[in-house]
């Protein structure tokens, strides 16, 4: 990299240096900020381009609406948040320091009205005594009704950050998983060395960095490596890694969370640096990275020193000043004061001088100066104020000068437009704490270092406390090689490139005494040093309390420039050490992650997969209305022209089935193929009713209980051969029922010879129901199969062929109460079969029916379903107590006998009809005696299922009523306060149609 030169000083980009930086000066690109057009170069961030154009005021603060500028050059930025892009792509709270510049970028400042220069809400600053820590809790106490209507909207308007777009996000997001032997997080000098030495062993390496360019602080500091500019070394490493087949470099990718088993969450900003994502490309990609070993080389974040007016635009972290000079070729000011408590901060003087920036003074709070600082000041010819502090930055919308208190307590005023401040560095330890490990205070380096590391993680570089470049390079080489070795690779030492030995000496200074003006600890949340003092006075001394009382450390920057200063100040006030005071640990994410990235392709209709039944295409052609049942999309009903609402359609479908014939897709029922010598014995264990006597070619209802005696699922069991059964489950419980069966086989009865295979999707299965069902079926069943009542009676099953030799299965089962069959064919013929059945059914007046008519007819027949099998009911509760076998042991048998489950007072299934036959019933209503006062103690049960019964001409219901079957004929109240219902209902038999069960037998 060329040495930065002097500013051009005129025309566009007046603060752009003549040379230097990793920007592409051959191209000039345009962007707008608050509607005004500026220019920059590829390689700029929005922040560097604004600074190049002399824009230092970038936003207003959260609470006091104070003018704010750019504090940092990275993802720790608390102030320079903008709304990026327009329209549906508008994204609020975007860090200008991380937004890469592209041609046509548009950004708007936030939290100001009517303009950034003149913001009426800055009056809050005058009211600041009101807005101290805890003001939410103190100010708007009473009356509480005003909270929602007045206070909250008012505070939100005054204090909010940016505005999100109201439009749907037009971009796509992707998710992917990648695996590595060694994951290296951070591509600064330590991370690059770690990746290089791991890659050279042949290990699979993934290297991630949140920035577009690799190199980290070595580039920012324009360091020399092996006697050459750091950029040259970075380029050579990058070339070697890019060409290695075993290395994947993910740029613009933030590892935001550390999870169990070496899993890391990362988000790659694939297209955020482009005006628009390339055709087909996602905007961002969420990575799940799984690594055997991880080298964390996440660097460190510089901390400010807390002094008066330290939030003025023009006060900037010293490291960020060097970044703008060296990486972007921008001078962030013309007359600078450097304020530091450490040797590294002092190097900023050299960088400024080299760029031709006038350094008014180097203020070093340490009375005893190191040789390095003296040398720097001497070489630069800069005034050195040792043992002094900057007490205040003065100016309004940008710094115009500082007040300095000398060692001898004299006050000096100096004019300047840039204050570069360094209070030391905090290692970026966040990922080490995500699994609960607490950091450890280091008394030499004066920072928190990682404590116990997550399994498989090691450290390199600044995060390990090795701030100096020569140490970071060496540490990276060691960490990379040893991580690779842990995965079974052979490592030969990688030569560590040479770098000058740098001093990291520091004497802590957290804040200045007697600040001149408001001294901010957390700039994003407008928390001042006096707020910390107030919190202490009011008893919020624990760090967790301090955080929540003052809101310190929250929001998009997660307090990365604030937390350690705040707790150090708290330690100072309370006379405790920093480790005694403690630290809040971080949770994921390290930086904000867009919800779109977490959703990926799973949004809107694709939130979860959809399952389409075999008749879907045909039903859609018919104009069916569909309903989601679990993942399935099933036809709910089939409206015909002239029908005014769903009820009319459903009535017609029910009436057709009961008088002629209807066809319904029941393929969604779970189907399980069960074979083996012990299949019958196994069924006897998992069903409550006896199945041993079930003959070949017959089907029987089966009820399955949980271990605790509660109903799990029901369905039919058909027997096709000596050792071959075919079971159906409800649609909703299909997966659960198979899991249960697998569990029973694998864990409870492993000695049994049983094989279980799900066959749900093999068969397209249709219910053909109604008095004309047999006649209809005879049109498709091949003539060699006798399906007359003599040859194929109720509950018979058989393997047949249809339509000239297509294999099929026929079951004489009924859910509707009518003569009915279910016919199954291999799913590929499902579409053709429904068309053929409908065609053949024309002469009988057949119709298709959906889940609504299905539901109506099962309620009319008193058949239980999902609302009755609700996870709290026993066989007796649902009226099937008589079916429970007393002759065998089965799952649920023993615990089902518990007194609570056999209490005769338990609400039990009965039917209900409204006394006023015009009245509508609603499920969910609770039953109470006619004269009772509604309360929990007078509650006698609840309605589970209701339907308008076309067969009865009024509403009917099923429900659980205390001693229900003994109370037939009684009138009770169906009380439904939620929907204002209070209806008298008569207790009746749950079977409303054909109580003798004549029709099913034909």
């Amino acid at each position, binding site marked *: 990299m060329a040495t930065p030169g002097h500013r051009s000083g005129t025309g566009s980009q007046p603060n752009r240096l003549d040379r230097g930086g990793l920007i592409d000066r051959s191209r000039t690109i345009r962007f707008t900020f608050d509607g005004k057009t500026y220019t920059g170069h590829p390689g700029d961030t929005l922040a560097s381009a604004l600074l190049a154009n002399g824009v230092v005021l970038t936003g207003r603060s959260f609470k006091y609406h104070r003018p704010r500028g750019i504090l940092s050059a990275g993802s720790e930025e608390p102030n320079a948040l903008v709304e990026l892009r327009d329209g549906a792509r508008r994204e609020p709270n975007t860090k200008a320091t991380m937004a890469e510049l592209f041609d046509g970028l548009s950004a708007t400042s936030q939290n100001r009205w009517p303009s950034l220069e003149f913001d009426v809400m800055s009056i809050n600053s005058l009211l600041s005594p009101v807005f101290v820590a805890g003001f939410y809790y103190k100010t708007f106490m009473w009356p509480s009704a005003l909270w929602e209507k007045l206070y909250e909207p008012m505070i939100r308007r005054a204090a909010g950050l940016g505005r999100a777009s109201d439009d749907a996000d037009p971009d796509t997001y992707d998710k992917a998983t990648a695996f590595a032997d060694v994951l290296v997080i951070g591509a600064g000098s330590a991370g690059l060395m770690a990746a290089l030495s791991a890659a050279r062993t042949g290990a699979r390496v993934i290297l991630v960095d949140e920035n577009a360019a690799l190199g980290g602080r070595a580039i920012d500091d324009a360091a020399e490596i092996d006697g050459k500019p750091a950029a040259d070394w970075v380029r050579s490493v990058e070339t070697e890694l890019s060409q290695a087949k075993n290395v994947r470099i993910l740029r613009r990718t933030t590892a935001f969370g550390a999870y169990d088993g070496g899993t890391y969450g990362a988000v790659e900003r694939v297209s955020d640096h482009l005006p628009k994502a390339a055709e087909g490309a996602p905007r961002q990609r969420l990575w799940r990275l799984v690594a055997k070993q991880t080298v964390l080389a996440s660097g460190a974040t510089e901390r400010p020193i807390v002094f008066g007016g330290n939030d003025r635009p023009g006060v900037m972290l010293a490291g960020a000043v060097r970044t703008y000079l060296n990486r972007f070729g921008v001078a962030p000011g013309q007359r600078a004061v450097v304020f530091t408590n450490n040797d590294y901060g002092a190097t900023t003087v050299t960088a400024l001088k080299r760029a031709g920036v006038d350094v008014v003074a180097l203020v070093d709070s340490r009375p005893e100066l190191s040789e390095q600082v003296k040398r720097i000041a001497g070489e630069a010819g800069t005034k050195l104020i040792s043992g002094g502090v900057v007490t205040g930055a003065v100016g309004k919308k940008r710094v115009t000068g500082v007040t300095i208190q000398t060692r001898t307590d004299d006050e000096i005023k100096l004019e300047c437009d840039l204050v570069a401040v360094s209070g030391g560095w905090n290692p970026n330890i966040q990922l080490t704490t995500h699994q609960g490990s607490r950091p450890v205070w280091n008394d030499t380096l004066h920072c928190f270092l990682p404590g116990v590391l997550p399994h498989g993680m090691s450290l390199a570089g600044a995060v390990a406390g090795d701030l100096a470049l020569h140490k970071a390079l060496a540490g990276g080489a060691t960490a990379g090689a040893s991580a690779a070795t842990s995965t079974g690779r052979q490592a030969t030492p990688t030569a560590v490139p040479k770098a000058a030995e740098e001093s990291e000496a520091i004497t802590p200074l957290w804040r200045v005494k007697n600040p001149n003006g408001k001294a901010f600890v957390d700039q994003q949340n407008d928390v001042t040093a006096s707020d910390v003092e107030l919190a202490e006075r009011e008893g919020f001394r624990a760090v967790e309390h301090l955080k929540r009382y003052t809101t310190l450390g929250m929001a998009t920057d997660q307090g990365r420039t604030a937390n350690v200063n705040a707790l150090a100040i708290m330690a100072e006030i309370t006379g405790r050490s920093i480790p005694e005071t403690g630290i809040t640990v971080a949770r994921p994410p390290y930086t904000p992650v867009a919800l779109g990235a977490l959703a990926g392709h799973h949004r809107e209709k694709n939130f979860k997969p959809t399952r389409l039944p075999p008749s879907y295409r045909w039903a859609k052609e018919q104009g069916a209305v569909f309903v989601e049942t679990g993942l399935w999309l099933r036809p709910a009903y089939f409206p015909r022209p002239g029908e005014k609402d769903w009820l009319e359609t459903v009535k017609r479908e029910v009436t057709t089935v009961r008088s002629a014939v209807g066809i319904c897709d029941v393929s969604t029922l779970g189907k399980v193929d069960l074979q*083996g010598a012990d299949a019958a014995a196994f069924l006897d264990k998992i069903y409550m009713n006896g199945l041993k006597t079930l003959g070949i070619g017959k089907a029987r209802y089966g009820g399955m209980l949980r271990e605790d005696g509660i109903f799990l699922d029901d369905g039919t069991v058909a027997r096709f051969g000596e050792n071959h059964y075919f079971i159906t489950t409800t649609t909703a419980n299909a997966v659960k029922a198979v899991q249960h069966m697998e569990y029973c086989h694998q864990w409870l009865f492993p000695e049994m010879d049983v094989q279980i295979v799900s066959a749900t999707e093999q068969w397209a299965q249709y219910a053909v129901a109604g008095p004309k069902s047999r006649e209809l079926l005879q049109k498709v069943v091949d003539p060699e199969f006798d399906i007359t009542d003599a040859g194929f009676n109720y509950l018979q099953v058989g393997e047949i062929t249809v339509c000239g030799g297509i294999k099929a299965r026929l079951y004489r089962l009924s859910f509707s109460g009518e003569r009915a069959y279910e016919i199954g064919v291999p799913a590929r013929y499902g579409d053709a079969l429904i068309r053929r059945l409908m065609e053949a059914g024309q002469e009988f007046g057949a119709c298709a029916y959906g889940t609504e008519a299905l539901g109506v007819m099962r309620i009319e027949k008193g058949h239980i379903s999902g609302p009755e099998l609700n996870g709290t009911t026993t066989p007796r509760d649902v009226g099937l107590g008589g079916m429970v076998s007393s002759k065998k042991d089965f799952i649920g048998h023993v615990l089902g006998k518990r007194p609570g489950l056999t209490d005769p007072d338990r609400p039990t299934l009965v039917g209900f009809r409204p006394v006023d036959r015009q009245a509508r019933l609603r499920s969910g209503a609770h039953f109470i005696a006619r004269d009772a006062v509604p309360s929990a103690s007078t509650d006698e049960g609840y309605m589970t299922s209701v339907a308008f019964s076309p067969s009865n001409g009024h509403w009917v219901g099923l429900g659980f009523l205390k001693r229900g079957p003994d109370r037939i004929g009684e009138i009770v109240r169906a009380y439904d306060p939620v929907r204002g219902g209070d209806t008298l209902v008569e207790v009746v038999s749950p079977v409303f149609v054909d109580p003798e069960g004549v029709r099913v037998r034909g």
Partner: protein
Amino acid sequence: MAKQGLTATSAFLHWKPVANSNLTVDARETLTMASFAAAKGKKDELNAAVRAAYGVDLPKTPSRVEGQQGVAFVWAGPEQWLAVAERKDGRDLETEFKKTFGPLASVVDQSDGRVVVRISGPRAREVLAKGIPLDLHETAFRPGSAAITHASHIGVILWQIDDKPTYEVALFRSYVDSFAHWLLDSAAEYGVAHA
């Protein structure tokens, strides 16, 4: 007498084959498939029967072997397999296996229950990585490897055919539309136009 025959319908409602230099995606709709499981205590005899008829041993770990007569066997659980073959000349593995294995195994037709999608080409691995949370790197998953896993929340059986690489994914028929949506979305950045 009714009309004879029924026409088979594709499970792929919204689908178009993909073929570019990055990726090819094909629906394989001419397969016969059967699940089979060894009867208790019969796994060795079953293996001998398979060896005699198809010249291979049944896999004991998640993998796929190609036998003679064009049948491939994919491990599908302890003592369970999925067998796949071309459905030409009315071939039906369920019938074939019942005859060959007799009481040694229970056999269930899956020719319609599952559909198979073949994904091949230089970008196949990256596309699958967007939904399948397994390490498909050439050193971890090779031709002949198989896995029971999920792709974008849809349960699948995955196996690798060759090192182009070519993979096949078997999934339940009703999920095909959602699977295709995910696959084409995920392939979009490799020049695959969206359906």
